[in-house]
């Protein structure tokens, strides 16, 4: 009986156990499923959370670094607050114009700064606040570190081993990788021991790319025509004609064109980059018999790639910031390196360890930027009684101001069509000197072109490299807007007529040239002469001989004392030096009710010496005769043979001899011309073989072609169209 009872009790216990176990299994399953789901979701959420944390930390780090650089600018500058609320910072020392260097490794010129412990950065620089924990050598607890090869992923530091293609840098940098900056709840903080308050860490290096070659510009193609192959690159001046084959002494550090293997690396670069402009044949980046851009080496036609590239460089007006608008027939366009990673990838596509190696990348960049606006502010010359430097920053009406302090005081439309907002720099861009071609002795270039597109003036300009687009932009309106001058038309106008300085908004000859503050008040941009006046120290202008008199035909002392006349003369001389003709520029102004004329200086001989002699008249020995002898001299450094027919007009009496002492006057034979008081307007032509590089009198060997001079006595007369070179 007892045994029966025990059986029943065991069954009851077993059922209960099964039920309990079932519930346990059920709840365990539910719990596992729940935990599994929440764990995976938690991991995903944490991943996103950590990513956001890192993003925030990186953004803070970048803000810190940039903030330190800005603070460095502020600390090393004199701040001038403008009326519009903006602040201008002028460096207090020349050394402050560039960032201070700190922690930079020897042999890595591009590296200017890194996060470094006990930062020795000189003032006004700001410490990096790095701790004594190195990003490479002090491995973190999870085994992570940043190798110097990884740090040099941009290849801005020279390579340590050029036999391999990776970015391993020179030992000097490997031994000087950045230290960690630890961020706590108090910000970037130097710590000396592990701290639970650390939120994250960062380290950094700053590189200057300003000295690198902009690969969106630099490099030119092979020219199959020998005569232009040397002339065009020889002009220099433009980064486009930087010789990339001269970068290094071996092919690995340059764009050999060709390299030792016969690969035209420079042509591959230009063919890829200036594809639509140069239209290379074959396919990139092939080499050998079907080499990409092989036509560069053989095409000698007038439209060859080298000429197309040359014209592209000449006609570029946007600083190479955008590509040419016209695609190639196959729809492809010119290309640009958009960022450094792309440049590195391109190098990898065409280079190897022996030609265009990765070590070359330390010299190359993808951009070059500078403010295309003048930041000129005068300094005070030693001994000057005028403190230009102080006046420039303090005098609101200074003739020579700090350009940065001259701001637009009202809104207006600039010449390029953009709007000048109040507070912007009045002079926002440099004055393009290509506009000098607009002012010709026959009038505005566009007007001359419209009248005759093969006018010798136009032909001379295009032969000198001026593009037609530039010539056609030289309308009367544009010339007035940019130079403030108008050309007389009708009446006494025509070729050889003088220009009149009115300023861009004037209607008649101006009496003076406005200051930049007056220009700002007039709500417009300054013209060429106003810029000249602002840039040339006022005390050096309008110098006279000490208070002499003037009037009639007296030596023009008053003219010399007029600074506006002086500025116009300087401007006219600049124009004359730029233009291809030999006709001096004349610009009129009206300082006090009478028109004055300022003259430019061409590359021509000028009267340099005059001296009188007296003695017995050769024709009438009983009479005394006085002669005024003079010499001509071309003071220009490049004075060679005269470029064109230059005639010397004489209103008066003159005799020209063979030269030398002891010559006698034989009327009608020895002298080339005799112009006496009744024969006004005689002229001779200076011989083309004469240069007058040294002062010389007129003789019958350096003159020819005596003839009546054109024009009216005492007035300027233009010569016939010059013979083109």
């Amino acid at each position, binding site marked *: 009986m007892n045994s029966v009872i025990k059986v*029943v009790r065991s069954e009851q216990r077993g059922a209960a156990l099964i039920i309990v176990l079932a519930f346990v299994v059920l709840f365990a399953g539910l719990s596992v499923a729940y935990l599994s789901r929440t764990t995976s979701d938690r991991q995903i959420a944490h991943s996103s959370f950590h990513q956001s944390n890192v993003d925030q930390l990186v953004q803070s780090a970048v803000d810190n670094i940039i903030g330190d650089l800005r603070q460095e600018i502020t600390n090393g500058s004199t701040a001038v607050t403008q009326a519009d609320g903006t602040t201008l910072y002028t460096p207090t020392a020349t050394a402050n114009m560039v960032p201070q260097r700190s922690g930079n490794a020897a042999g890595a010129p591009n590296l200017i700064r890194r996060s470094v412990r006990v930062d020795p950065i000189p003032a006004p620089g700001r410490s990096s606040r790095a701790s004594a924990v190195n990003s490479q050598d002090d491995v973190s607890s999870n085994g992570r570190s940043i190798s110097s090869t990884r740090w040099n992923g941009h290849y801005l530091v020279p390579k340590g081993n050029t036999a391999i293609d990776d970015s391993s840098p020179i030992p000097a940098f490997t031994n000087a990788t950045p230290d960690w900056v630890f961020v706590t709840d108090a910000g970037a903080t130097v710590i000396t021991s592990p701290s639970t308050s650390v939120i994250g860490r960062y380290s950094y290096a700053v590189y200057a790319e300003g000295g690198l070659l902009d690969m969106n510009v630099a490099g030119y193609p092979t020219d199959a025509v020998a005569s232009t192959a040397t002339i065009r690159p020889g002009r220099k001046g433009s980064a486009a004609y930087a010789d990339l084959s001269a970068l290094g002494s071996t092919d690995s550090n340059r764009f050999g064109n060709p390299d030792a293997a016969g690969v035209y690396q420079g042509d591959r670069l230009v063919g890829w980059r200036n*594809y639509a402009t140069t239209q290379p044949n074959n396919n990139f*980046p092939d080499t050998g018999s079907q080499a990409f851009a092989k036509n560069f080496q053989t095409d000698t036609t007038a439209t060859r790639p080298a000429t197309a590239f040359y014209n592209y460089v000449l006609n570029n007006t946007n600083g190479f910031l955008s590509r040419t*608008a016209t695609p190639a027939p196959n729809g492809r366009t010119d290309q640009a390196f*958009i960022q450094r990673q792309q440049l590195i990838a391109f190098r990898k*596509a065409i280079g190897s360890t022996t030609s265009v190696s990765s070590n070359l990348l330390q010299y190359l960049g993808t951009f070059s930027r500078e403010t295309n606006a003048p930041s000129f502010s005068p300094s005070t010359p030693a001994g000057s009684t005028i403190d230009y430097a102080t006046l420039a920053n303090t005098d609101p009406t200074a003739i020579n101001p700090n350009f940065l302090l001259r701001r637009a005081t009202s809104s207006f439309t600039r010449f390029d069509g953009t709007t000048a907002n109040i507070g912007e720099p009045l002079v926002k861009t440099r004055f393009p000197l290509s506009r000098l071609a607009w002012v010709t002795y026959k009038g505005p270039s566009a007007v001359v072109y419209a009248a005759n597109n093969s006018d010798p003036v136009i032909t001379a300009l295009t032969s000198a490299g001026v593009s037609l687009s530039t010539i056609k932009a030289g309308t009367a309106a544009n010339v007035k807007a940019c130079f403030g001058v108008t050309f007389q038309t009708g009446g006494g106008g025509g070729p050889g007529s003088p220009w009149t300085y009115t300023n861009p908004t004037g209607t008649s000859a101006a009496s003076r040239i406005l200051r930049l503050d007056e220009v700002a008040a007039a709500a417009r941009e300054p013209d060429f002469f106003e810029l000249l006046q602002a840039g040339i120290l006022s005390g050096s202008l309008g110098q006279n001989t000490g208070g002499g008199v003037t009037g009639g035909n007296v030596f023009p002392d008053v003219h010399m004392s007029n600074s506006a006349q002086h500025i116009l003369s300087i401007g006219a001389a600049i124009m004359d030096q730029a233009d291809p003709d030999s006709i001096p520029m004349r610009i009129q102004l009206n300082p006090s009710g009478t028109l004055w004329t300022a003259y430019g200086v061409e590359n021509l001989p000028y009267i340099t010496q005059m001296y009188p002699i007296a003695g017995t008249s050769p024709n009438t020995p009983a009479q005394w005769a006085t002669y005024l002898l003079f010499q001509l001299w071309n003071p220009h450094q490049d004075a060679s043979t005269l470029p064109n027919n230059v005639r010397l007009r004489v209103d008066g009496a003159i005799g020209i001899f063979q030269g030398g002492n002891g010559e006698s006057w034989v009327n009608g034979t020895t002298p080339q011309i005799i112009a006496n008081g009744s024969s006004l307007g005689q002229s001779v032509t200076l011989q083309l073989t004469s240069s007058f590089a040294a002062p010389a009198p007129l003789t019958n060997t350096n003159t020819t072609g005596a003839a009546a001079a054109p024009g009216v006595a005492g007035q300027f007369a233009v010569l016939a169209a010059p013979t083109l070179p």
Partner: protein
Amino acid sequence: MKSAIIAPSRRAAAGFTIAELLVSILVVVIITLIATQLMSNASAIARTGNKHFDTDTQARVVLDRMALDFGQMIKRTDVDYYVKQKVYKGHGNGHGCGAGRNNDLGSDQIAFYSHVPAYNPDPLTYSSTKQSPISLIAYRVNEGNDAARYGRLERMSKGLLWNGVSNNTGNGNGVYYPIVFQTGQIDSSCGGNTCPCNGTVGPWANAWKGAICNTNNSSDPDYEVIGPNVFRFEYYYMLKNGRVTDWPWDRFDMPTRQTIFYDPSYPQIKIGLSQIEAIAVSIAVIDPASRTLVQQAASANTAYGDIVDLAAELPDFKNSCGRGNGQRTLGSVELQWKGVIESIAQTGQPIQGGGKLFPPEAAKGIRVYTRYFDLKIW
């Protein structure tokens, strides 16, 4: 002592009393009911949570991918973008001040060049060294007839060869264009929703038409579904002056401008994306079960709309077609979307009514997400 031992055995042998059984059954029933209720509630909570997780995960993946693409976007004024602006035609979802149901024309599209990895167009012919690091990236919500892609967010990542590697032209096999530094290839002169525009020139016209079109014949093998649960894609601009607009410039400053490229009204200025501080992307995500519910309802009853119909009920971000009014603010489009979703959840119809019906339960699985992508253009 003996009786003490025997007594329990007797009770056991006698079995349970009726009262004991009833109490036990009652307890079991109560426990079962409680457990059932608990499980039901937990299941409901878990289901809602799971939906949330599903949409969260989906949104995170999509928006993170967009962050990479936008971050590496080629930002220049001499390259083309296919972005929402005053003139934004060429595909079935033209945007602007046009007409359409509720004046809303569905999801946006965007295409641009970016410095991100992409598929090699022809790896058998062209080695990896001949593929440039620049790619053509595009986003759209597929509206073709491909059921596997219908109403899902797609991303195109078209790898581009280096310039000059392939010089073939046209639209056949072996035609691979590099990045083209030329704007205006998306012709703004054609009207309607023709895609691509008849006058369109360049690779957009044929080889890349998938980047700007969204029709059945604009499939492109480089399109892949990146957001299978994302059914609505809208973006707008936060300008540098703080305004929020559907045109990438301030219409107060340039009221007659038509496009970010060359514009006769402003011949001196090609603005590109230079006026933009950030692009705001709003997406609507639906969990898979709710999507299935919507599609099944639409299949069973034509009175019910499908997933694209549902997307169309979420209003476009659009400023007023003129100056001075209709200015939008941050979050306004998301607010509108949530209003529509709530309306569907409560009534089975969007706010406007009169259109398609949608299962209210499906609305509970819809979430709206927005992220701002700073273009970092100074």
